[in-house]
Structures are given as C-alpha cells and as structure tokens.
C-alpha cells in the first residue's frame, strides 16, 4: 500500500483560486490544504459488474473491506507523512495492520511494516522499486498503488483540452502526460481530469493504459466541506477493461485531530490495548 486511502479522497480538494494555465490548475489541485492530520474509517467494496436497465449491477457478491486509519504530516514543512491502517472487516483479516512512513525527499524509500495478527509479528515489508510500474492494487480493488499515490506536479506536462459542465459544476478538462522519466514507472500513458473551476476538485478522471487504451474511469461524488476543507466522501473506480468496479466510501473523517506520535509507531500495530485506548480517545473526539 503506497499511500493510505484518504490521500486520494483528500487530494482532490483545494482552496478556490484563479487559474492561469493547466499547470497552475494542477498545482492548486495538488497543493491543497488537507489538514495536518486525519482520522477516518473507510469502506472499500469491489465487484465484477454487468449492465442491466442502463445501470451497473454487481454480478457477484462484493468483496468488502472496512479499515480504520490515522495519518499525520511530519518532517520539514510537513512534507513527510506517517500513517497507520488497521483492517476491521472482513473478520478473518481483523487486526492486520500497516504502518507507513512516506518521505518527500526524492530517492528516499518509503518505510513500511505489516502486522500479521495470525502470526503475532510485526514485519518490515518491501517498499518496491520506484523506477518500475507497480502492478499491485489496494486490497485487490480497482485502485492501483499508483492511483493512491500523491502526484508530484513536475512528473507531468499539462494541457487544457476542453471545458464542460459536469455534475452541475463548470470544469476544465486537463490532460496530463507523464514525463519520459515518470513514464517508465507509470501504468498510464495519459490521464484526463475534470477539475471543478471553483473548488479545484477533480470530479472525474480517465486513465489510459500504456498502449493508449482507456482502462479506468474515476467518478467522485458526495463532496462536502469540513473544517473549510473539501472532501469527497465517495469514489467509484470503474475498470472498463476488466468490467470491475470499486466504491471507496469515507464513513467517518476527522481533520486536524490531535494524534499522539506514539500512535504512528510499531506499538500501535502490536500493542492492542494501547491501540484501542488511543483510538477510543480519537473516536470520542470524532463523535
């Protein structure tokens, strides 16, 4: 897991501003205020689908994961990030946890640990090679690791390819092409994003595979404002090639919560009483 789920949920938010060109627009999308810390519970549900009466319908019982996650900005200029995520459901995976330290510094690998509740062991896991495309996905969903990573502005060139009213909002359609350096490790050859002109939210995105064929469509809904920050509470990622869809739903979220740094250590993974006691304090704050 390269980044925790809320990064994609929150990365579409930004303060309103006047855009001058495509790169400016995307800078405002990326450099948003998403709070210095977050607590969230999220549901990730995936299924293979068919079309019935012009509606997408699951063709199988969806696979559902519910996770509880905490993230805090750290380091110089709060550019680094530490996060922990614990699986609550399905029951068979309850207690499995992930701890991750992300660094803004280029070339500095992510630190990741996994707690295997069945083995009672915290294990450092391989971060992966940043120079090759990552093929894994978040819990087997349609959100690939690349979809969940925070984008760096200079990894792409941008072009406004159109304007459209989408979901009742005036949007720019911004095309992003990876630089030759980034293209080596990207699963996508091109991305088109529908950016809300007023809120600088990405409301829709089309991702094209390395052969130039459309592969995934992201749709965002249930956009709310919390503590002055725009949050999309629901994301649908539709893989039009495999005909599989994932809905990611933010059930509860608290921004700028007081997170004890000790919570973002291996202790939270393995020390259940510490974790539950601390989480109860945050859950009470959230309620």
């Amino acid at each position: 897991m390269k980044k925790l789920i809320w990064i994609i949920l929150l990365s579409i938010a930004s303060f309103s501003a006047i855009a001058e060109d495509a790169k400016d627009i995307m800078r405002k999308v990326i450099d948003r205020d998403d709070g210095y810390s977050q607590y969230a519970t999220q549901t990730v549900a995936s299924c293979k689908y068919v079309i019935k009466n012009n509606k997408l319908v699951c063709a199988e019982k969806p696979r559902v994961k519910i996770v509880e996650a905490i993230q805090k900005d750290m380091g110089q200029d709060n550019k680094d990030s530490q996060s922990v995520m614990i699986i609550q459901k399905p029951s068979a995976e309850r207690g499995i946890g992930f701890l991750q330290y992300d660094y803004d510094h280029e070339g500095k690998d992510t630190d990741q640990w996994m707690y295997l509740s069945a083995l009672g062991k915290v294990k450092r896991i391989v971060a992966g090679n940043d120079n090759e495309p990552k093929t894994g996905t978040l819990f087997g969903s349609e959100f690939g690791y690349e979809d969940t990573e925070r984008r760096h502005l200079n990894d792409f060139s941008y072009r406004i390819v159109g304007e459209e009213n989408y979901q009742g909002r005036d949007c720019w359609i911004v095309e992003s092409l990876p630089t030759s350096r980034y293209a080596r490790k990207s699963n996508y050859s091109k991305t088109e994003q529908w950016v809300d002109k007023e809120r600088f939210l990405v409301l829709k995105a089309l991702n094209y595979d390395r052969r130039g064929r459309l592969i995934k469509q992201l749709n965002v809904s249930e956009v709310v404002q919390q503590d002055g920050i725009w949050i999309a509470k629901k994301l649908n990622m539709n893989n039009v090639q495999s005909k599989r869809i994932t809905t990611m739903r933010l059930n509860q979220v608290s921004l700028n919560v007081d997170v004890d740094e000790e919570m973002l250590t291996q202790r939270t993974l393995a020390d259940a009483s510490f974790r539950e006691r601390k989480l109860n304090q945050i859950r009470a704050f959230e309620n």
Partner: protein
Amino acid sequence: MFLIWLMSLQPAMAQVPVQELELPFLDDMGVEMDNALFVEDSPQSTWHDGIIPTLAYQSGLSLYELGELISHRLDIRLRAEYLTQQAYFFRVDGKLINRLPGDGQLSSNEDIDWDGRLRELFVQKGNDKGTLTFGFQNFAWGEMDAVQISDVIAPRDYSEFAFTAPEDARLGQLLLNYQFYNDLGQWQLLYSPWPQTNRYPGGSASSLLEFVTSEPIDLNNRQPRILKDYELAMRWKTTRTGHDMSIMLASLLANDPLFEEIGTSNGTTRYQSNYSRFNMLAATINMSDANFLWKAELAFKQDLGLAGLSPEYYDVLEAAIGFDYDANGAWSATVEMFNQHIFLDADDLAGLEQNNSQMLFRWSKQWLNQTLSSIYYLSYQLQNKDNVHSLSLSYALSDNWLVDLNATLFQSSESNSPGQLTENWDQLTLRASFTY
C-alpha cells in the same frame, strides 16, 4: 413517432466522442454507476464485533499410498477481545478439534476424539510509557519467516509435523511481558513462571520418542515445573529509516526434550526426558533497498542440549541470512539460509554434524484480484540432502469462505538421515473454512 424520437437523439449522440461510444459503461452515456455497490454510510459497531468464530473442515489423503485417509476432522476456532472502561484489555484465541472416523491420529479404540489448542489468553494494561501483559501469548521474535534462531520463546505445534498452517504453528507461552518505550527504542522484559513446550502427535513427548525409536519405550517425562523452571529474557529494538535492529538476551528452557536412556525393564528401554536450560545472546537486522528486504540473525547459544548418540550440551553459533524480494506487486520470493555451528572438534561430537545447514525458498503470487494465492515452498538440508516441497493454493470464495489445497512431498536419499522418518508422508490436504 419512432422517427421523431430517433431524430431527437441525434444531436446528443453526435456530441459523444467515438471513444466513449465503444465503452457504453461510462456515466456520460446515462449509465448509473454511482449505486452499483451499496456501501453503508456508517457501519454500526455491535457487541459481537470482537468475537470471531471460524469453522473448518479438513481432509488429507496420502500421496504415497494413494487415497489412504490421513486426516479427517472438523475444528472450530474462537477469537475474542474486549477492552474494559478501565482500559484492561482481554484476548482469548483457542481451537477445538474434532477428529472424525478415519483420521490418522485417532487411536485404534477410538471413533472420534476431541482436542484443544490455546494460542492466547491474556490480560493487558498499559499507559503511555509501557504495557504489561500476563497470560498465554502468541509471541514472535526475529526477522526470519521460517528459520528459528531467536524466535524460540513461543513453543510450536508439531502435532501435524509439516502440515500445520503457519497461523496455527505457535502455541501460547505463559509470560509476564513488560514492554516500554524511550528515546533509545523499544524494550521488552519477559518472565515465564511455567514455560510451555512443543506439542507432538498424541500430545506427549513419549509419542515423539516412540516415533523416533519405533519401539515400545518407558519414559519418565520431566515437564517444566511451575516457578522452578522459569525463563527470563529481554530485547531491545530500534527502528530507523530503512532498517530495524534488535538485541536479545535470554535464559531459556529448550522447547524440545532431550531423551536419555537410563536402562531397561522387562525388555522395554527406559528413558528420562529433560528440557534443558541454555543461555542466548542474539542480534537481528533488516535493511530495505528498493525491491529487496535483506535480513540477518545471529545467536550464540551456551549449553544448548542436542541429541546425538547421547544428549550432550554444546556452545553453538547460529546464523541466518536471507532476503524478501517483491517484483513490484507481481509476485514475491523469500530466501533464507541457516547454519548451526557447534564449537567442538568434529571427533568429539557423538554422532552430530559440526555444521547443520538449511536453505528455505518461498515463492508466492496472487491472482484474480487477490482472491487466489499460490505459494511454492522448498526446504533443503545441505548435509544430508533431505528436502520438502510444498505447493499451496488458497481461494477466497467470498469474504467469509476460504478453500485451501496443499500438496507436500518429502524426499530423503541418505539412509541414516532424519528425513527417512517422514519419507512416506506425501500428502494432499483440502481445507475449507468459514469465518463469521
């Protein structure tokens, strides 16, 4: 009417890009994709969230004598945890096994039997500085996944020998466990007033000896005594960018018994078993580098009891190096190499090899959106060339149902190697489980 309706559609259709016409699932075509998956707004917590029962059925067939039933059983596992208002945390994790007719571990006069396993039963209380835990704990030290060097605190369940699932392999160790944290790292102090030991088929050490000797025996089995046969251990661990390391110091009882022949009685050989004490100084380190996680363990064990022609106590050095490799999510592999070196002249080793070396290899790949996983595992002993191959497929039919299929093959070529004992154990095992 139809023509008018068709004409009214034309301008709208003309605006749809060709690319999207080929993909009629996009919302621009009016398909409602937003509600394909119903996701609860806010799942409510219930009182039974912390209680997880798993019901499983297992059947194992011999691949050596084709079709012969080896295992045939049901088991129910219950995991439960609860945090009180006063911040006491309780956890229990145990399993009840019901062996059915035909199961190889049933004695000749039984149709069925019941057996139990306890992995965890503890109470925990902590504050910001540290946490105190008392009870039976599922406890793991070290960096290696398969090799056991420093990971010797918790006893193992060998009642199924190589066929025990990894999550069932450790048994609870009775521990008073205090962990605390300061600027230097994590500290852990352990005291076991009544050390638990490895479990064998039939549940006792005598069945292990009967298995090894293949003859009737009379065993005086001396189990660890409460308070008198204690264990003490401590660990310091630190986490840094890109690597973790730890140092451990311990005075432990061996988890395996040593058998000593003490005479004969009515034609039956009499033995005395003993869980001997040894001291351990160990260190571990891991380092992450792109696709690789490098890992190493080193341990000096003083007075470690080893069974050759007779039980003897040796100073040994155990070392392991290895790595995990992840092909950026496509597949992963693990290699671990282990060596145990006895500090004594080879001529004085009473039937033991001075070096005991082993290599372990594991390859895994996930398929079908991580619902199907495949694992190949190889264990190879360098001195006597005993080896074990295992291939497992695990498919999650749903979030609740899991089906596992495992084939394990044993190979042993040297007549006096330990692998001769398990050479005929080739087995195909099917296991289906439902977790509520």
